[in-house]
C-alpha cells in the first residue's frame, strides 16, 4: 500500500486560521474535514452576568473585519426584548455604517485575498507587481470603507459610537456630504475593476446549494427581514433555532451549523444575490448584467464577481443615504430593560450573523447564543472540497492543494469569528 502525506503549514489569505484534512485511500476519497483547533473563545459564557447595554461592544470584539454585524445583531436582539424599534434616520445611519463594513470587507477579500488566486501568485504583494493600478485603486476603495466606519462609528476598527437604541452621537451632515465625491469616484472605479475581473478565467463548478439569507419584501435585506431560503424556509429571525442547529464535531473546536434534517446551507453574497437579486440597486443589477452574470449564480468561484455587485450596491446605498441625510433630533432611543428573550440577525459580509439573548428585569444577560456565518458555511465548504477532490484526484498534490485553497477562499471564511488557524493536510494511502 502506498502512503503519502502532504502538508501546508498555513493556509493563507483567509480571515483567521484553521485547518483542512483530506484523506484518499486506494484512489477513493474517504474523508474531508475542515478543522478548527484554536480553543473556543467563550464569548457567550462571559456575556452572562453583564448588562444588556454592553453586548454590542463586547461582541464587536469577536471580529475586527465585521464588528458592525455583531454590534447591530446584538442591538436588534436587545431592542426586541425592550420593546423598541429603531427607525428613520437612525436606521439609515445603521445602514450607512453597514455599507462601510461591506465596502471595507469586500475590497479586502476581492483584491487582497482572492484576486492573487487568479494570477496564481502567493499574495497581494506579488499582485502589486503585475497589477499595480488595481492594488492602488483597491487601497483607495478600502480607505473609503474605513472612513465611513470612522465617521459614523467613531473609529475604523471596533467602532465605539453604536449603542442599543441608536448612536452616542449622530454625525454632522457636512462631514457625510463631503464624502460624496469619493463615493462617486469609488463607484466608477469599482465598475472599472469589476470589468477587469470579469475577463479572468473562472473555474467551472456548480452544486445544488441550499441558500439562506435575510430577505425583505422591499429592500436588499441587511438589518431587517425574515430568514429565507431557496428551499422554502421563510420564518422570522426568532425561529432561527428551529431551522438551524449547532453541534460539536470531533475534528473542530468551532460549532458546525446544520439544518434540522442534517443538511448544509450556504450563506453570504451568493445566497443574498440568488435570493434577493430584485432588491439590488439598479446600478448593481446593471453591473451584473454587464459582467455576464445571470439572474442566479451557483458557482462559488464567481463569488468575486458577486462581491463586486454587492460592493456597487453598498456604494449606491451610501450615496442615497448621505444625499437624504438629516441629523436626527436625538441620536438614540431611550431603552429600559424588560425581562425576556430577543433575537437579532444581520447580514455580515460573509452571511447571516445571528444573536439570541435572554435578560432579566434588571437588564442582566442570563443567556446568550451567537452563530457566525462561517459556522454555517463550513458545511458547504467541506462538500465543495469533497466534490473538487473527488473529481481531481488525477492531479498532483500541489495542484489539488491549490484548488482546495481557492475553494475555501471562495467563502471568505472568517474563521477568527468561529475561532482560528488553518492548515491543509492531504493523506493518500
Amino acid at each position: 500500500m502506498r502512503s503519502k502525506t502532504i502538508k501546508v503549514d498555513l493556509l493563507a489569505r483567509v480571515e483567521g486560521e484553521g485547518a483542512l484534512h483530506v484523506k484518499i485511500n486506494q484512489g477513493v476519497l474517504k474523508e474531508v474535514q475542515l478543522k478548527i483547533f484554536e480553543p473556543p473563545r467563550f464569548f457567550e459564557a462571559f456575556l452572562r452576568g453583564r448588562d444588556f447595554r454592553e453586548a454590542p461592544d463586547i461582541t464587536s470584539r469577536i471580529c475586527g473585519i465585521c464588528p458592525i454585524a455583531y454590534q447591530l445583531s446584538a442591538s436588534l436582539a436587545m431592542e426586541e426584548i425592550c420593546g423598541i424599534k429603531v427607525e428613520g434616520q437612525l436606521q439609515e445611519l445603521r445602514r450607512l455604517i453597514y455599507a462601510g463594513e461591506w465596502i471595507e470587507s469586500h475590497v479586502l477579500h476581492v483584491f487582497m485575498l482572492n484576486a492573487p488566486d487568479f494570477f496564481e501568485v502567493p499574495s497581494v504583494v506579488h499582485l502589486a507587481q503585475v497589477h499595480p493600478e488595481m492594488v492602488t485603486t483597491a487601497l483607495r476603495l478600502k480607505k473609503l470603507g474605513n472612513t465611513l466606519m470612522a465617521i459614523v462609528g467613531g473609529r475604523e476598527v471596533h467602532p465605539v459610537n453604536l449603542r442599543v437604541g441608536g448612536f452616542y452621537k449622530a454625525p454632522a451632515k457636512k462631514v457625510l456630504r463631503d464624502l460624496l465625491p469619493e463615493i462617486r469616484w469609488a463607484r466608477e472605479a469599482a465598475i472599472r475593476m469589476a470589468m477587469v475581473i470579469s475577463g479572468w478565467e473562472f473555474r467551472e463548478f456548480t452544486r445544488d446549494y441550499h441558500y439562506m439569507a435575510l430577505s425583505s419584501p422591499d429592500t436588499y435585506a441587511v438589518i431587517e427581514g425574515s430568514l429565507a431560503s431557496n428551499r422554502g424556509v421563510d420564518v422570522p429571525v426568532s425561529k432561527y433555532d428551529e431551522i438551524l442547529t449547532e453541534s460539536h464535531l470531533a475534528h473542530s473546536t468551532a460549532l458546525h451549523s446544520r439544518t434540522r434534517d442534517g443538511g448544509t446551507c450556504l450563506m453570504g453574497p451568493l445566497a443574498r444575490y440568488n435570493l434577493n437579486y430584485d432588491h439590488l440597486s439598479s446600478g448593481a443589477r446593471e453591473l451584473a448584467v454587464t459582467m455576464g452574470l445571470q439572474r442566479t449564480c451557483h458557482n462559488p468561484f464567481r463569488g468575486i464577481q458577486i462581491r463586486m455587485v454587492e460592493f456597487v450596491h453598498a456604494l449606491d446605498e451610501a450615496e442615497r443615504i448621505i444625499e437624504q441625510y438629516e441629523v436626527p433630533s436625538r441620536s438614540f432611543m431611550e431603552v429600559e430593560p424588560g425581562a425576556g428573550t430577543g433575537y437579532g440577525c444581520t447580514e455580515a459580509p460573509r452571511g447571516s450573523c445571528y444573536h439570541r439573548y435572554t435578560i432579566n428585569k434588571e437588564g442582566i444577560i442570563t443567556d446568550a447564543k451567537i452563530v457566525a456565518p462561517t459556522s454555517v458555511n463550513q458545511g458547504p465548504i467541506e462538500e465543495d472540497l469533497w466534490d473538487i477532490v473527488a473529481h481531481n484526484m488525477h492531479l498532483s498534490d500541489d495542484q489539488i492543494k491549490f484548488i482546495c485553497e481557492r475553494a475555501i477562499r471562495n467563502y471568505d471564511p472568517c474563521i477568527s469569528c468561529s475561532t482560528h488557524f488553518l492548515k491543509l493536510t492531504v493523506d493518500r494511502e
Partner: protein
Amino acid sequence: MEFNTLVVCMGNEFRQDDGLGPYMARQLRAQNLIGIKVMENNGDCTQIFEPANSSKQLLLVDAVKSGRVPGTIFRLNRDQLLESREFFSYSTHAVGLWQCISMAKMLDTLPGLIYFFGIEGRNFGYGNVLTPTVEKAAQKLLPDILNLLQGNAL
C-alpha cells in the same frame, strides 16, 4: 495636521503584551511632539498606506512573537524590515505588516526612512496590562525612539 514622521503603534490593548503598541502610543503622545503623527493600528495594516506615503519617515512599533527571550528588543531598518518576511509571518489577518510594507515598496509609496521597533512578548492572552518584563523593556526602548524622533541617528 502637518507631519514629517509617522509613528504607527500596532497591537491590541486587550491582549496583554500585544498592547505594546497602544502603550507606546500613550507614552509618545504625552511628549507633545511637533511634526510627528502617532497612529494606533489594531491589525489592519492597509490603513498605514496613505499616511505613510505622506511622511518622510515611518516608525513602526509592535510586539513580537518569535520564540526569543521575552523582553528582547528588536531594531530593524528599512532594508532589514523588507528582508524579514519570516519574522512577520504571524498575523491574525492575512494582509500583515510585512505584506503591506512590501506592497508599498512595489507601488513606490514607501518613505525613505523606516524603522521597526519590537519587543518579544511573554503573554498574548486576555488582559489589559503588559507583563512586567515587556513593560520594563518598553521603558528602556522609549528613550531610543524619542532620540530618533528628535533627529538623532539610531
